[in-house]
């Protein structure tokens, strides 16, 4: 898929973030620069401690940064930091004491959105993520994969423009993970959201991403940023294609693994 030249939705330029501890400085991100167009599914890939999660938190407004730029929104796609972010973490983080529908509704409650419409939307989203009929179940009644689907529905309920996902399938078994990758592509296509997806899985990044931003450690820095052009729709078959192998190899090289 080629991205037509539009105004970027996310602009990160020369971003630098330093952690200070006991008078010493540890660079978490040094000089990251990339842009993401509206509707892209951009993957941030790299080993643990490379700053990809920090970058996600900066974009979510949860952390500040030392220098550079990190902007979201454009005149054609305005962005409200309070209600245009949906987040999904490695753990589903569902509230144990709430039934599924009430869990999905949490962001709508916090933002004070009209409950009747939000409930309808939450039901539709549960259907979309493959959990129809589970509205009244408690989280403990669901498998890890199903809980993570509910977490994705929760991230979408307030109709945010940007979904930030921090290794959302990292705790799932390999087969469930493959399945969730396919479902995520479906959900992304149907919702039209811009998604920023943090992972340390190289093939996951190539399979999902319209764009991959590669981070390395020691020192933490951004190594590369490129578009992925693979045939659409993406099916598991493309994982054995030559182009897929080339992209994967490129990332392995960047990470110093030959």
């Amino acid at each position: 898929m080629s991205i037509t030249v539009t105004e970027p939705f996310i602009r990160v330029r020369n971003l630098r973030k330093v952690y200070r501890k006991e008078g010493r400085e540890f660079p978490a991100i040094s000089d990251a620069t990339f842009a993401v167009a509206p509707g892209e599914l951009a993957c941030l890939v790299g080993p643990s401690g490379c700053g990809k999660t920090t970058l996600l938190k900066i974009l979510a407004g949860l952390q500040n940064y030392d220098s550079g730029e990190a902007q979201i929104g454009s005149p054609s796609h305005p962005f409200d930091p309070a209600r245009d972010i949906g987040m999904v973490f490695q753990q589903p983080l569902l509230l144990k004491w709430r039934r599924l529908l009430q869990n999905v509704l949490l962001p709508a409650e916090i933002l004070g959105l009209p409950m009747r419409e939000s409930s309808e939307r939450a039901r539709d989203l549960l259907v979309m993520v493959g959990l129809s009929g589970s509205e009244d179940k408690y989280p403990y009644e669901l498998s890890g994969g199903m809980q993570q689907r509910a977490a994705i529905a929760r991230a979408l309920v307030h109709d945010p423009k940007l979904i930030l996902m921090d290794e959302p399938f990292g705790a799932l078994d390999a087969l469930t993970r493959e399945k969730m990758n396919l479902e995520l592509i479906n959900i992304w296509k149907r919702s039209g959201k811009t998604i920023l997806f943090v992972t340390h899985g190289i093939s996951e990044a190539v399979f999902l991403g319209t764009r991959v931003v590669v981070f390395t450690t020691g020192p933490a820095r951004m190594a590369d940023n490129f578009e992925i052009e693979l045939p659409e729709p993406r099916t598991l078959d493309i994982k054995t294609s030559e182009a897929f192998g080339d992209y994967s190899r490129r990332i392995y090289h960047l990470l110093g693994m030959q």
Partner: protein
Amino acid sequence: MSADAARRYAPAIAVHAALIVAWYLFVKFGRVPSFIMPTPIDTVATLGGANYHWLGNTLVTASEIFGGYLLAVVVGVAIAIAFTWSSIVEATFMPLLVSLNMIPKVALGPLFIVWLSYGIVPNMIIAFSISFFPILLTTVRGFREVEPELLELIRSLRASKWQTFRKIQLPSALPYIFSGMKVGAILAVAGAIVGEFLGSSRGLGYLMLQVQVTLDTAAMFMAVLLITFIGVVLYGLVLGLERLVIVRDARIR
């Protein structure tokens, strides 16, 4: 009671009954003198004695226990909320509370009596002071046990402090609050009785000291049973409330 519930509770009821039977057999056939240990029948028979004022004494002790305990729950949870709200308040006052908690509360009993004279109130205060700290500690812990990423998720939605507390921190702390309340319930009973031993003119603890002089062991046993009964009722109420609040959301199954 349904057949199902009967089956579930039958072992517990049977073991209680067995203990009473064993007690009876031990005294009866062990030739234990009744001033050392009365039989269960002798014990219950004291309920007929007019000069023991069982009802009045039980009500006095019960109000000391319930009053002190209720105060401990309210104050303990309130202080825990204040600590959760402001880390400066916690950093300032938590060490002080830890120091104060190191004071043996029993040693304060005579002082409370000097300050407040004999009566229900000083015993209530002793029950309060002894049961309040575990409630505070577990509640503070409960408010802290929220996954940091869940707080980040809420923060990314710009949730207010009140929303965070009401929707996340309070419900996730509830199991901790109840476990503190259960420990506190047991301590409150001990606190009130210690208070009555130190100085009082009414209550089951007071009665025990009175009848001890005449070696009326059966009445002492009855007093212990009634104190235990008050404790069981309090504990049962806490369990019932816990079930009402938490089982509903399926965390205890």
